[in-house]
């Protein structure tokens, strides 16, 4: 499939592990336990999950800030590891990243001009007048006035700082932008401004987004396809609204039921004091089984697999919802 620009195969990231000085085994934690996702050119893939599900680790591996322990990532067919070892600038020219906390992703002691110049200088080899022109063009893209270039980050509000973060990602002229919770640190009235801006930029520059968030309603609003992650794995993936209209995985159902909606009362709450499994001692079967109202014996023995294609609706569950009823 030639139009797939980013694909992961069985991506795993383990933290810790190895041996201590006295040959004892160090404990290891699987943050990502085998993730397969693929993104087509020009689409937005939403990745939803709660804290600790591995979505940020996944995002960092996609842009080369972290190396996978196993499995691989390919960018337009080229393995990411090859790209990284040959020239990490080449990767940064293709994939960029927008951070969650807009203020802390800007160096407090540097002017916005210096921060934004870095990708232009080192990735696009601009200098002199060309650099100045491009800086102003970028500020214009994200609806900030050029005077803002000569300010320090603490003089910005969260929404403005996030625009700078987006401008920095755009500066490298990437094909793909990984957005890691880009609006969750912002006030609700500013969230919408940034979401609309992202939408405009995508149309204007033909960008491909991987939009990571814990907020189902935001993901629903921006994504062409959605993947739900739980405990380091993708548990459900579907195109369009299918996942929100008829979720197959009980975890997705739970997420949807837990989100409070303005004007509605009466959330569905799980009975038990359900928690994430202990990452140090993961359950042998489906990670969601201990919380799952539909779990049966087979769920606790074997990890359910699913064939996540491009446009099908698949859930990694032995007893998916909808099939039973």
């Amino acid at each position, binding site marked *: 499939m030639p139009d797939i620009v980013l694909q992961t195969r069985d991506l795993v990231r383990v933290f810790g592990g190895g041996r201590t000085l006295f040959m004892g085994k160090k404990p290891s934690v699987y943050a990502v336990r085998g993730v397969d996702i693929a993104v087509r050119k020009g689409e937005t893939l939403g990745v939803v999950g709660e804290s600790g599900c591995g979505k940020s680790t996944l995002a960092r591996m996609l842009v080369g800030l972290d190396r996978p322990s196993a499995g691989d990532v390919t960018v337009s067919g080229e393995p990411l590891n090859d790209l990284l070892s040959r020239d990490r600038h080449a990767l940064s020219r293709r994939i960029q990243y927008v951070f969650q906390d807009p203020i802390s992703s800007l160096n407090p002691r540097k002017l916005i001009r210096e921060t934004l110049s870095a990708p232009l200088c080192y990735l696009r080899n601009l200098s002199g007048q060309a650099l100045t022109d491009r800086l102003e063009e970028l500020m214009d893209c994200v609806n900030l006035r050029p005077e803002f270039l000569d300010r320090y980050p603490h003089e910005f509000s969260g929404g403005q700082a996030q625009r700078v973060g987006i401008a920095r990602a755009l500066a490298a002229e990437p094909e793909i932008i990984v957005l890691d919770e880009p609006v969750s640190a912002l006030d609700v009235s500013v969230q919408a401004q940034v979401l609309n801006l992202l939408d405009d930029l995508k149309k204007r520059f033909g960008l491909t987004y991987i939009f990571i968030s814990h907020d189902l309603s935001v993901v629903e609003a921006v994504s062409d396809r959605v993947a739900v992650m739980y405990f380091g794995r993708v548990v459900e993936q579907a195109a369009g609204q299918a996942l929100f209209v008829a979720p197959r995985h009980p975890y997705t159902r739970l*997420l949807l039921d837990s989100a409070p909606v*303005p004007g509605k009362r009466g959330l569905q709450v799980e009975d038990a004091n359900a928690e994430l499994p202990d990452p140090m001692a993961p359950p042998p079967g489906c990670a969601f089984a201990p919380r799952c109202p539909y779990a049966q014996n087979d769920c606790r023995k074997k990890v359910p697999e699913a064939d996540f294609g491009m446009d099908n609706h698949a859930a990694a569950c032995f007893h998916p919802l909808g099939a039973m009823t």
Partner: protein
Amino acid sequence: MSNPAATAKMAAKPRKSSARPSAFKLLARNHLALLGAVILAGVIIVALITPWLPLTDPDATDPANRLLRPLTDGHFLGTDHLGRDLLSRLLWGTRVSLAVGISASLFAAVFGSAIGIISGYFGGRTDNVLMRGIDMVMAFPYILLALAIVAALGPGLMNALYAIAVVNIPFFARNIRGVTVGIAHREFVDAARLSGKGHIRILLSEILPNVMPVIVITMSTTVGWMILETAGLSFLGLGAQPPQADLGSMLGEGRKLITTALHLSAIPGGMIFLLVMSINLLGDGIRDVLDPRLKSGALARPAPVTRIDRSKTMTNGNVTDANPNINSGRDPILSVEDLRTEFVLGDDVYKAVGGVSFSVGRNECVGLVGESGSGKSVTALSLLGLVASPPGTIVGGRVMLEGRDVFDMRESEIRAIRGGRAAYVFQDPLSTLHPLFSVGDQLVEAIRAHNRVSYKDAWAKAVSLLRMVRIPNPEQRADSYPHQLSGGMRQRVGIAMALANEPELIIADEPTTALDVTVQAQILKLMNNLRTEHGTSVLFITHDFGVVSEICDRVAVMYAGQIVEMGTTQQVLQQPAHPYTKRLIDCVPRLGEAKRDVAAIPGLPPAVNNLPAGCAFAERCDRADDTCRAGAVALDDLGAGHAVRCLKPMGGEDA
């Protein structure tokens, strides 16, 4: 005024100098530091101009005039055992000691910081190798190490300088490494990496500017120590070699004659004292100025109760709302009238809460909704005088808790109410729970602060509280420490603590914002159940209308320090009357309505130190005209407990 460019323009306007005092002003405010600076400047100036002063040669011996007392003719400070002029030797010696001390500091700072930054940034094996090396240097007694270095290189001032510098490298390396570790994992370093910067560029242009203040602080506090160490080595005869004068060697020579000519050792000793003291005083001052925590006033001890000064606002003609007590008709347990809280920073007055009135009825849950900076949290903290003072002051209003004004109470009475009749639940339980005590012990403390019960009884109560908030295995969980619990469990502990003394009112400040949705749903259900079971009233502060509809009976929407709309949850959500409320509800994507356009609110909320004369929302409102901007708008009663602060409220037709 609703295009995005206008957004930028609006925010671009208030660019003025920082409200905080300048670094020099801060330093000058510290009188001891100023004294140190003046003395040090005096000594340095004298040391610098020494070559041009009309002094006799410091090394010229004159055995005829040996051991003259101070104030003799021609020798102001007398002469030493070889008849050399003491004043001249003192000034030349100070010059040498200062030069050696400062250069040794610089040397140690450069090498120590370089080691610290590199090992902090790269971490892992690099860090291990470098830091174990530093540990070995630290494990030697410093004077032994210095002696060994001097012994190897031979005595002499330069070798003493190297020795002292090397001995002090670990101090810098350790300090700087600690700071670097904190900075190296910040997001802007990752961002720089993705911008195509290499390791060396990141170290020099991203990390170094951020650790510079720490390097300066460390240097300012070590220069004095270095001068002492130089003097120590010279005193032992390993530093400056005769006939060259430096303060340590002068002291060493004077020691032999201390019984016959005290001034020989007293004068250089006094100079060492003066120099080191002034440097240390100044160093402390510099540290206080550069340390961001000290700068923000975080280390200033806040008063136990927010400062209350209601003299100004009692009489002036503020718009007071005609009907401040729009409530559900239930017997109010808490009633807030025209509450005003201000923060004074430099010359700016931030009116964080500008006249807020509302009430909470018995067994009612009232939501206080707003964006950050709207004043909702400051309102909540003001209720029991918990706003940090300085800089906060309550400048007006009353908080009636069961018929008594909290602000008229004595400090001890307010303390008895906190955690007693009214309890708080905060957003982040990890930062509100003490990390070093088990949750059971913390609950016991909360119980025993208000009741005279034995530890054992209190522990039993603590376990039953944990059971009440549905923590599994409460007997064992009471022994856990906060870091051993998940976010949801910690928030349950926070709620259990609030419930410890059966409060009538719980003030919950964004209690679920830091939690995952599935956990949030659990906590909301728990709070709802507790409310029904115990008849508690809740003031629930949040920014999420979804949460509001789940738990609140009535809602007050805040904007720029004022309540702009108040009513039952249904009224406010179904028929919002204020344009801000309507737009705030509409700008959030809703689950299951992905096709709905998300309408952003243009612009930013006004800064509360620079509020407009009229409606604070007028700049962002498409219905606003000149009357809106003319003057303050009063809260207008729409009937049935619904009130709005708007001249052009939205009617049924466009809501």
